[in-house]
């Protein structure tokens, strides 16, 4: 784990509300695993107290890329930065996705910008699989090309029907699972809690493993402040808090106790 001053190499605009930034940070890039995140301190904004966590979208050649949606103060401030500007990064943080799935087919489920860590995962997995990408509208469907390059099977669902199937991505996933009962996939998902809960339900019903990456507001990012806790069920049966930043952000579906 490192703290690095990372220079922005490039800013891309994959959509009106979305940005991809490429950051030069060799130590972090060299040790990053899919599902891990960086904790970013924005420069020159003295009234911002907390860092902002971003899951890692790419890590190669001494650079990482992150993909984010402009949603609040932090991401608005970040969107004002340009190539050449520097940010302070802590990372790579957290426990990522298990990548060792001998013989089984990976099925990835993304909601909106939750596709970012899954695109990184697909690159590192040895087996090609199926990616389900969901969003409210066509503008929220990202990274399709990334998966095309890897020759993955791509299924798209939008709530307004403007791209792919009309409906929730989890409905499209359910139909696929029902149609392919002989395939025993390992599920990986990242997106809003509602989507993760639905994926979790589908996995438990079918006795499949599902690795879910949670998106929570964080404080310290290293397990000290206990702000980003999630109720978990532990192997011995008792329930208690897990720290999304340190014990996660990836948990197996059966570990999570949903509200």
């Amino acid at each position, binding site marked *: 784990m490192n703290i690095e001053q990372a220079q922005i190499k490039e800013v891309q605009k994959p959509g009106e509300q979305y940005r991809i930034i490429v950051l030069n940070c060799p130590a972090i890039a060299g040790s990053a695993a899919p599902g891990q995140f960086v904790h970013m301190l924005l420069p020159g904004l003295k009234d911002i*107290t907390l*860092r902002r966590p971003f899951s890692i979208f790419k890590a190669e050649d001494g650079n990482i890329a992150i993909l984010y949606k402009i949603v609040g103060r932090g991401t608005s401030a970040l969107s004002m930065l340009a190539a050449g500007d520097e940010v302070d990064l802590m990372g790579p943080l957290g426990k990522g996705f298990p990548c060792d799935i001998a013989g089984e087919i990976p099925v990835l489920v993304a909601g909106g910008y939750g596709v970012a860590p899954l695109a990184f995962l697909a690159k590192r997995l040895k087996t090609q699989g199926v990616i389900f990408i969901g969003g409210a509208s066509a503008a929220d469907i990202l990274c399709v090309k990334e998966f095309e390059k890897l020759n993955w099977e791509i299924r798209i669902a939008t709530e307004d029907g403007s791209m792919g199937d009309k409906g929730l991505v989890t409905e499209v996933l359910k139909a696929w699972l029902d149609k392919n009962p002989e395939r025993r996939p390992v599920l990986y998902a990242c997106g809003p809690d509602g989507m993760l809960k639905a994926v979790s339900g589908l996995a438990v019903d079918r006795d499949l493993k599902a690795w879910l990456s949670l998106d929570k507001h964080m*404080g310290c*990012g*290293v397990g*000290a*402040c206990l702000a980003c*806790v999630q109720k978990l069920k532990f192997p011995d049966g008792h329930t208690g808090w897990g720290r999304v930043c340190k014990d996660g952000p990836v948990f197996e579906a059966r570990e999570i106790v949903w509200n």
Partner: protein
Amino acid sequence: MPCKYDGNMSNAGKNLDMTVDLAGIRMKNPVMVASGTFGYGPEYADFVNLSELGAIVVKGISAEPCEGNPVPRMVEVKSGLVNAIGLQNPGVAKFIKEYMPFLRKHDVPVIVNIWGKSVEEYERVAGCLNDVEGIAGLEVNISCPNIKEGGIAFGTDPKSAGRVVSAVRKQTRLTLIPKLSPNVPDIGVMARAVEDAGADAVSLINTMPAMVIDIETRKPVLANTVGGLSGPAVHPVAVKLVWEAWKAVKIPIIGMGGITCAEEAIELMIAGASAVAVGTANFTDPSTASRVVKGIREYLARHGMACVKDLTGSIKTR
């Protein structure tokens, strides 16, 4: 406020005496990390050389494990944050077993923050820590705004505060440091009450009671509805209260509240603090404490001062 002394003059003040003896706790420098912002030590060990800290104050420990509050527990505000973690902790037995072996490996004084829901619970947790090797002091939290029972209920009434402190005093030989709330009409009265009850030092300030509302939903943001404000926003409040406490008592003061750089630490020491603690800024920049130490050195060198101790209470009248 711009930070002039931010640790960039690396050669400044090599021969300065940065040591502090805080009521028997010998510290390499006066800069510690505050309870609740540094976990139990291992969380930040990848980013900070723990042996360079003046002391570590670990997250609050109670006699029994405590689950804390529901989420959301923290929200950022302008120049700070409001938290209502609710003192989640593994309980004293698990703390001793899981974290003390790690902490003993580092050359840094360990101060254990303790709390209870009753005087008896404070006594019990203090008693459990009495014979544990490697603990330098107990910080007694009588000022947490985030739990209904105990906590701040003891910290806003001088008689109750005195009762808790004298009960813990009977249980411990360790340096005893009550942590005071800023939410009192006269901090001097509270500081004197705990001094009279046997405190060796006093630390202040805890967070200030605060609240954030989401105007779209019109609901409080925190699950606990209210929480405690910390960060740069509270710093001038801490300066005033440290100054008032310094005028009221003879025991040393650990000053804390919104330190992000050396200037704010120096200001608290001039107001009367013998040592300072970095809190919320650990989340922003884990190297804050080390930057503050370097910056204090630069300040001492520039002002021709030989000992950091001479800063304490060096305020001049207007």
